[in-house]
């Protein structure tokens, strides 16, 4: 009998299953129509000579990828993206960790400081990017003026090829709010007993930090690094508002390269190839996050 082969399911369980699929249906439709469909379409289009119209597409195999890899500006944009990714991970994450450690101190008024430190993150957008153009102004800006007061001649910041990427990294350090809060929550999750036993073993503050805090924090740190890498790929607003990839190509990052090819040069096939590469990189990063953090993630999720 067939009934033996399929797991017996009661009527109420069947109804529950129907409700489950009914409830996830909007998300599922969205996934197919707005994400999965486009991703597959993008893969297909990256093999065509797509310019503007979709009507007479020629299949050109890997030509777009070949053209892309032969374009020195593409490699410049990859290099710039890597530069910013590394800068944001090294400086942004350590700065966020410093802020989290500060906010973890038991001093009065800490909630106020937490809010202040988070503030630039929520307002990150066109309005604040415009302010930063002004802050970075080499002659009249507040940044170089302040540096001058302590005897330093400031660099030309976003207006020079050498300084534009460090400037963007510096600016991004003002919006480390989310990773700061995640690290703070991580710090507060370190069991107190560990510090107590470390103190009994005679460990000082620095020893406690390197031998207790950092190891206990490592999964959170890993997650935070992944987030900052992913968000480094999204820095479109600053580039569009502040530098447009310049001076020269010195702040041309992958998302800007994609934008220029898609919507300015109308080389949509090439843009699709870039987008596909970005997609693969981001999926690999997400995969790495869950692979490394799996035990920790599910443990917390089950108990949570």
């Amino acid at each position, binding site marked *: 009998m067939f009934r033996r082969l399929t797991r017996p399911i009661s009527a109420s369980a069947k109804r*529950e*299953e129907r*409700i*489950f699929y009914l*409830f*996830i249906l*909007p*998300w599922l439709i*969205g*996934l197919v*129509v707005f*994400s999965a469909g*486009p991703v597959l*379409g993008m893969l297909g289009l990256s093999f065509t000579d797509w310019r503007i119209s*979709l009507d007479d597409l020629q299949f050109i195999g890997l030509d777009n990828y070949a053209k892309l890899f032969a374009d020195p500006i593409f490699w410049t944009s990859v290099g710039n993206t890597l530069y910013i990714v590394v800068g944001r991970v090294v400086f942004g994450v350590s700065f966020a960790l410093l*802020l989290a450690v500060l906010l973890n101190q038991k*001093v009065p008024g800490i909630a106020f*400081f937490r809010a202040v430190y*988070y*503030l*630039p993150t*929520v*307002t990150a*957008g*066109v*309005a*604040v990017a*415009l*302010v*930063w153009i*002004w802050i970075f102004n080499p002659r*009249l800006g507040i940044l170089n*003026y302040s540096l001058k007061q302590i005897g330093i001649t400031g660099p030309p910041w976003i207006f020079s090829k050498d300084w534009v990427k460090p400037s963007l990294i510096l600016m991004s350090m*003002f919006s480390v709010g*989310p990773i700061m*809060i*995640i690290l703070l*929550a991580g710090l507060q*999750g370190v069991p107190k007993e560990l510090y107590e036993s470390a103190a009994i073993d005679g460990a000082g503050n620095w020893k406690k930090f390197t031998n207790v805090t950092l190891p206990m924090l490592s999964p959170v740190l890993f997650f*935070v690094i992944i987030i900052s890498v*992913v*968000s480094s*790929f999204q820095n*479109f*607003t600053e580039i*569009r*508002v502040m530098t447009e990839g310049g001076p020269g190509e010195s702040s041309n990052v992958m998302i800007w390269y994609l934008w220029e090819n*898609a*919507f300015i040069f109308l080389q949509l096939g090439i*843009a*699709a190839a870039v987008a596909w590469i970005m*997609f693969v990189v*981001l*999926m690999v990063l*997400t995969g790495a996050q*869950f692979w490394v953090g799996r035990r920790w*993630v599910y443990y*917390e*999720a089950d108990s*949570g």
Partner: protein
Amino acid sequence: MTTRKPKESVSWRKSIKGRRAIGYILTFALLVPLGIAFVLPFIVMVSTALKPLNQVFAFPPRLIPETVQWENFADGWYGYGYVNFTTCTWNSLKITVNNIIGNLVSCTLAAYAFARLKARGKNFFFALVLATMLLPNEALVVPQYVLFNRFGWLDTHLPLMVPPWFGWPFFIFLLRQFFLTIPEELVDAAKIDGAGHARILLQIFIPLSKPALATLAIFAFIGNWNNFFGPLLYLRTPDVQTLPVCLVQYQGAYGNTDWHLMMAVATIAVIPVLLIFIFGQRYFVEGIATSGVKG
């Protein structure tokens, strides 16, 4: 009996009280300057917004304007021929409110299903939620553009206002985590009373999840209000533009920008976000902490 007094030679610096005081001082020595640095961009923005143009370019730069020119706000708002800030603000508000509601409705349904319903295939679909959680929309923008072009949606608000009704993996994940914390006994009791899933969701889960829902609403508000990429991509004519795009149009040719007026409008654009943040701060911080520590 010997009650030994602490030796006088133990210096104040090493005593517990002294250590704590030094700790306080060191902490504040870092907290305060950093705090000032974090609000400095706003001070620059507001002070530029209040200056007459000739003082904007004055050297040395002054944070407190010599003369306050309040009319910059009105001039900035109305003074730029083809940019209509009233229309842009209205468009931003309309899109933002729609997207908050859409996200909350669609994500609540999916989160409830993932948290509380049993079904074959559930783990597979939840894995898909996790896999797409970190994927930024920017990576999908080229094919989405083609799709919305096919739908005839370009230069309308539909590409911005329809997708939020179809869930957002990050929000689904956060809400599911929250729903898992609601005690099973409440659900069982409701089931005994004959409540269906729709009623359990409406009468138990939603009232108990107000903080989580508030968090998501704040996230959605800020994300949509600041959204620049989408509007820039899908909208062309001035009548449909949103606030961030309007602000960029204020940037004249290089060097010709009316900085004082632009900063005045930028200040106005930031105020709603500031207010939401100040009043919703508690939810906000908790929401992010949950997202990080629990996954």
